[in-house]
């Protein structure tokens, strides 16, 4: 991209609320949840959909938290649909029933992505604080009956990686169109729980083999996606296809971010659609321009042949692990701080290491987390 040129976004990630009945220890929401509790209203989100579509966005992912806790969700689906956006509902399925899903489908919902934490009740309770598998299966059934395309999403970690074959079987049983076996990204809540969640390399490779064989066997029926944790890759992932390039994330209170986690980076002032139109923020907000393109890149990224493919990796990870959002992603083996990732990997390999207790996502603890973060910032 030439300097100064505004990239075209394709996907809007609308975080409608951070409220959620689940308490997953890998949640991608920020630690300081309570600071974002003043949610945009129905009309506010309507403007976001209109402005995003005008920028070229084609896909709207309605997510959270749990979007189903918004009583106006049907109106929000209808508003996004009216802008010809392909509307995906990213949900835990709790709380939903057939009537509600039918209402959403009637409002123009195009597809549903249902999360399952585990097929083992103890495993689900360990990671999410509760087990809802039966209710989720009901939701899957209702979605199929309505003809809604269904993606099954499972976040993979040390606690459930052995059950990847069972997740494939579940996807087949419920008639999913797509199965996402997404290893945890170690940011936010997941970073706080990293030593409890990061699997050993052999377990990752085994799960990847199972997923690859299933993908081959089910080609054309179920699309199966296995996302490796970047702690085990030699090169960083192309996080969000580049900073503020293809994705717009809007938080419940209207803050415009390049990804779910970017609010954790101190020193960047992200703007809200309550103050300025989305198009203006997207075009010239200093925080969104901070890591757009390649001008910000340090060595070794600056001259690396892969910089056009991975965009230098994840800025939030660089900030979280190195303390500098402008550093090379330490997941990259070429990073001068790759030792950080190597050390974490070594701990995951150590068979004697009893995993530490997991810290579930809780609203009250979030506020503590927020205070702690502010102290370290100050």
């Amino acid at each position, binding site marked *: 991209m030439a300097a100064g040129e505004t990239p*075209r976004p*394709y*996907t809007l990630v609308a975080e409608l609320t951070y409220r959620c009945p689940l308490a997953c220890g890998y949640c991608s929401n920020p630690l300081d949840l309570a600071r974002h509790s003043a949610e945009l209203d129905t009309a506010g989100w309507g403007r976001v959909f209109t402005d995003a*579509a*005008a920028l*070229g966005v*084609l*896909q709207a*992912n309605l997510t959270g938290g749990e979007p189903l806790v918004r009583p106006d969700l049907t109106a929000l689906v209808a508003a996004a649909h009216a802008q*010809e956006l*392909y509307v*995906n509902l990213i949900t835990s399925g709790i709380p939903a029933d057939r009537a509600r899903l039918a209402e959403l489908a009637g409002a123009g919902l*195009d*597809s549903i*992505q249902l999360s399952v934490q585990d097929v083992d009740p103890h495993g689900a309770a360990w990671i999410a604080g509760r087990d809802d598998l039966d209710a989720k299966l009901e939701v899957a059934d209702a979605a199929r009956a309505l*003809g809604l*395309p269904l*993606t099954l999403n499972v976040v993979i970690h040390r606690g459930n990686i052995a059950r990847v074959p069972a997740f494939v079987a579940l996807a087949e049983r419920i008639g999913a*169109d*797509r199965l996402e076996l997404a290893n945890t990204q170690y940011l936010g809540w997941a970073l706080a729980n990293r030593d409890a969640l990061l699997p050993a390399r052999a377990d990752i490779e085994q799960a990847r083999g199972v997923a690859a064989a299933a993908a081959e066997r089910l*080609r*054309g*029926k*179920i*699309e199966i996606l296995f996302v490796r944790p970047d702690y085990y890759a030699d090169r960083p992932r192309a996080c969000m296809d580049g900073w503020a390039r293809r994705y717009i994330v809007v938080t419940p209170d209207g803050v415009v971010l390049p990804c779910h986690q970017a609010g954790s980076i101190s020193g960047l002032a992200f703007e809200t659609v309550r103050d300025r139109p989305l198009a203006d923020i997207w075009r010239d907000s200093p925080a969104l321009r901070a890591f757009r393109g390649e001008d910000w890149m340090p060595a070794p990224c600056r001259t690396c042949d892969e910089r056009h493919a991975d965009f230098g990796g994840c800025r939030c990870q660089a900030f979280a692990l190195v303390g500098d959002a402008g550093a090379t992603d330490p997941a990259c083996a070429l990073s001068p701080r790759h030792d950080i990732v190597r050390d974490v990997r070594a701990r995951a390999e150590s068979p004697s290491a009893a995993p530490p207790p997991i810290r579930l996502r809780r609203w009250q603890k979030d506020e503590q987390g927020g205070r702690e973060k502010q102290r370290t910032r100050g």
Partner: protein
Amino acid sequence: MIEANKRVRLAAKVRLQRDRVSGKPFLLYPERGLELSDSAERIVALCGEDRTVAAIVDEVTAASGEPRERIETEVISFLRALDDRGLLVVT
């Protein structure tokens, strides 16, 4: 499997839509979008209505005036790419 005697139509999850920025046609499906070239758009427009793959090849050949073998290769490889992504119902 895409073969000459099979009938193909777009899967329910796929929506064909003209992009308001570029004016180009897109296939939209969960989490993704596929921009179509002019020739791909012609093929997509012929999917459905109970046409066989062979009938699609005939129509594209007639419209383009190019050799049928070449068109057949192009049509089948494009339909296979869609089928691999689960975007077609093949009967």
